[in-house]
């Protein structure tokens, strides 16, 4: 039966795709509802071990970046380094981490220019008061805050946000600790001490 039908190709084409999409969606659904996955997600940025790993990696990265002091603004450097190490720690499972890592590689200037242009054009078009629903507007704002999540569905955006918030909290904790240590109790550099 199958061999005698000339129209097999389109059907064949759609079917594997269809299978793939279906399976990926089902897997996604299964994964999200699976309790083990949930616990893993919760514990992910909370453990002591993660903090230690992050802080040690951050310090190494800071040392390296200090030696090759790239840009003029040191604070921005530090911020980017911290973000990058955080994103690496996420191991590429979340969108925002991937967005942070790829944003570094792309030419920053080009990106800024293109983004500025598109924004200008959009604001010119949207002169009239378009009544977008409140939730939609807030979703867009949230999407802009979380890196790499501008065009995401509601539920995916929420998932990314929760992971991002947990990661940010850990980042704040570690950076507080390091700053505290360096500023508060660290011994002075030898130049100051040899009085």
């Amino acid at each position, binding site marked *: *039966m*199958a061999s005698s*039908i000339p*129209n*097999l190709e389109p*059907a*064949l084409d*759609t*079917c594997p795709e*269809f299978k793939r*999409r*279906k*399976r990926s*969606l*089902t897997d996604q*659904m299964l994964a*999200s509802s699976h309790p083990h996955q949930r616990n893993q997600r919760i514990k992910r940025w*909370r453990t*002591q*071990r993660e903090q230690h790993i992050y*802080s*040690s990696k951050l*310090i190494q990265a*800071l040392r390296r970046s200090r030696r090759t002091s790239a840009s003029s603004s*040191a*604070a921005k450097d*530090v*911020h980017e380094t*911290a973000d990058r190490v955080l994103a690496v720690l996420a191991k590429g499972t979340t969108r925002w981490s991937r967005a942070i890592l790829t944003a570094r590689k792309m030419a920053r200037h080009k990106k800024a220019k293109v983004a500025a242009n598109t924004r200008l054009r959009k604001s010119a078009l949207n002169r009239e008061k378009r009544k977008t629903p409140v*939730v939609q507007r*807030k979703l867009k704002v*949230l999407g802009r*805050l979380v890196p790499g999540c501008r065009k995401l*569905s*509601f*539920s995916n955006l*929420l998932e990314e*946000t*929760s992971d991002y*918030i947990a990661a*940010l909290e850990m980042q*704040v*904790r*570690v*950076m*507080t*600790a*390091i*700053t*505290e*240590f*360096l*500023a*508060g*109790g*660290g*011994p*002075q*550099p*030898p130049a100051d001490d040899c009085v």
Partner: protein
Amino acid sequence: MNRALPEMLQWQQQQSYFSELSGVFPSQTSHLLAFDGGFMSGDSVVTREVKPHIGLETPSPWPELGFEFEPCGPSYTVNYAISRTSSCPPAVPAAELVSGKMGSAVGSESFKKRKADKLQNSKAAVEDDSTKKIKVYEEEGESKITGPSTSKHKKENSKVSDVRKPDYIHVRARRGQATDSHSLAERVRIYIREKISERMKYLQDLVPGCNKITGKAGMLDEIINYVQSLQRQVEFLSMKLAAVNPRLDFNIDNIFTKVEEFPSVQAVANPIHYLHFNPVQELVSETALRRTISAPVTIPDGSFLDSSCFTQIQPSATWDGVELQNLYNIGRFH
């Protein structure tokens, strides 16, 4: 009518695909819930699965066939179609369907006949017939529901008022699963809403102060504020860290001792050369650092309200006994 033939062929092709997919089914929930664009393609694939019985034609015109599942096709294809669209445990209804009255071989044959019939008959006259019969059939299926079914499905199915006793053998719809377009879309919407509310609840635990707020807009506001404040904090901290960065190189061995869980030989040996600087002060700062590192999550709470809280040391920290021992060792080394 010209369209019908290639589509019929396509359906037959897919029928064989679906038989292959049998192993995958029990664990799968609805494929139709590929709502980010999947509907239309699902449309073309899925509609052909369910085939009308002898004398029953596919009710609606082709474009609308999207979710017009007729429960009276060959048993196992119906099984696949419907099991895919439902989130109920597929085991029992699958068994039901497979042991249904239509054998698969017979079904495919009759399907061919039906297809031929369909091509000849006019759509319109038969459409009403079949729709009604199918919907009636669904109602019968619904009435046997003991499994989970949302009230919405029941409502939608009870819309069908005329009850005409079908005089063919039908394979029933799965329990609790209506198969017209409205209920399917409804199910999709419910599913999405459940996902969203589940994630919102999770975020509510994450974001402090969200317990009192109900409603998506308010919660989104809170979440946005919280993310912004966290980002501002990181910005501020990075500025601060950049200011004290010169001390980083100098303190590097000390830092490694602090951050590593268990001291390697190197870490213990290296601090020797600077131990003649205030060891006691180091010890104190180390313990302070330990405390801040191992403090519970509530630190950001305090600190994002008031940035001066950064220098606070949370007294309610947990100690790691081995690390403390190590610290004392460093002090004693001097």
